[in-house]
């Protein structure tokens, strides 16, 4: 297991959402034009709806939206969606691995799993964004991102369709920023 370094100087946005997050995500990606960042997206969804996501989310800009593939390297100007029914891991060399292990927080893909990997590999370059949802998944992941020196953002629980997930995050850690449901796209575009 050779020690590898992640090259490229770009920020990685790790974004997670559950119930009530899809609308917010659709709007954010419609507005997304920032080609300097890589976004890794984990949403809890029914498998049947999952494969349609890359098309639903496609931006009109130069940002490519696709399902994350086995051993694919993370690159800026891309949005990678975790495939249905696998956890999405990130290797020390900045490539993805899929994992069919036990569910975490009743979820596969689990937001915690991907956030923890992102924290381990990208450290302070990570921006964790946790959206609407009725599950505690993602909070431990945000903590890992915080500990690694990254930035933690949650959707304002008041603007979330299901407030439990972002509210739980705010109770458990000091988040750096809260955003209204319509402010996420602009925030992503502002990342340098």
């Amino acid at each position, binding site marked *: 297991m050779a020690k590898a370094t992640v090259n490229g100087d770009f920020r990685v946005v790790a974004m997670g959402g559950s119930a009530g997050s899809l609308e917010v995500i659709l709007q954010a990606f419609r507005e997304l034009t920032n080609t300097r960042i890589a976004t890794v997206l984990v949403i809890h969804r029914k498998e049947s709806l999952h494969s349609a996501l890359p098309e639903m989310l496609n931006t009109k800009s130069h940002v490519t939206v696709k399902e994350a593939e086995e051993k694919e390297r993370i690159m800026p100007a891309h949005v990678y969606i975790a495939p249905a029914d696998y956890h999405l891991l990130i290797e020390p060399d900045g490539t993805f*691995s899929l994992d*069919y292990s036990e569910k975490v927080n009743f979820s596969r893909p689990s937001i915690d799993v991907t956030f923890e990997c992102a924290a381990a590999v990208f450290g302070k370059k990570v921006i964790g964004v946790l959206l609407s949802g009725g599950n505690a998944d993602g909070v431990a992941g945000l903590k890992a991102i915080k500990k690694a020196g990254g930035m933690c953002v949650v959707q304002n629980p008041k603007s979330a369709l299901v407030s439990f997930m972002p509210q739980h995050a705010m109770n458990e850690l000091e988040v750096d920023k809260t955003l209204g449901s319509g402010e996420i796209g602009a925030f992503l575009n502002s990342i340098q």
Partner: protein
Amino acid sequence: MAPEDIGDDELALLLNEIVERYGYDFTSYSTASVKRRISRLFILDHFKSFEEFRKTVLTEKNYIRRFVQEITVNVTEMFRDPGFYKLLRTQVLPVLATYPFVRIWHAGCSTGEEVYSMAIMLKEVGIMEKSLMYATDINPDVLDQVMKGIYPLRSLKLFSENYILSGGKEDFSSYYTAKYDLAKFDDELRSKMIVSTHNLVSDRSFNEFQLIICRNVLIYFNKPLQDKVLELFDASLEPRGYLALGSKEQIKFASISSRYEQLDPKEKIWRKLQ
């Protein structure tokens, strides 16, 4: 210890010591996965430091067996990805049915749900008698489960839904007997299974097959090891044989890819050209 607290160097060192001591080679496995599994073992077995863990693995008798059991991921289900099984049933098995005997290798079969699914299809297509299913895995404990063919009754609802979606037409409950909270599959389904340990990293090809199924195993390997294992499969496959992988696994960038054609744009089944 959280996965991110395990250092790359201490991990690499331990994996190398394990190769030397026991011959099990996990050095080319997905680092992210191995770290997560070790972190899980820390909780399950109450380790307090990496050094304590390392000592236990290297000196405590029998702990390596547990290590192998827990570092590998054994999650599986019957007729997982029904579309995949439908394609096997409608396009692959009818071709195999024209051969005098059929040899199928399930590499990394885990607790055997995949192999029992195959046995049911072979029976329904009417070629069970002339078929042999080789069920192999690195982990001897899951193979004990294959021999037993006993699964928790609560999983059977999902298995039977998958079975129907995959094109199964029989009464699924006719294949097992339920007792308390367990379901035992008929001995007849097991009669054509040959169960044995086989390590894809270090063991060689042991036969020629018309169909090799290896699903959700390559995702745990790094790219060079994936390539090496695909070469092993290629060497173990007859001309015009079939190779079937997990729904997110690819041969696209591997050296063997030019010798294979994919049967269907969606399902991960390839046929060897010659």
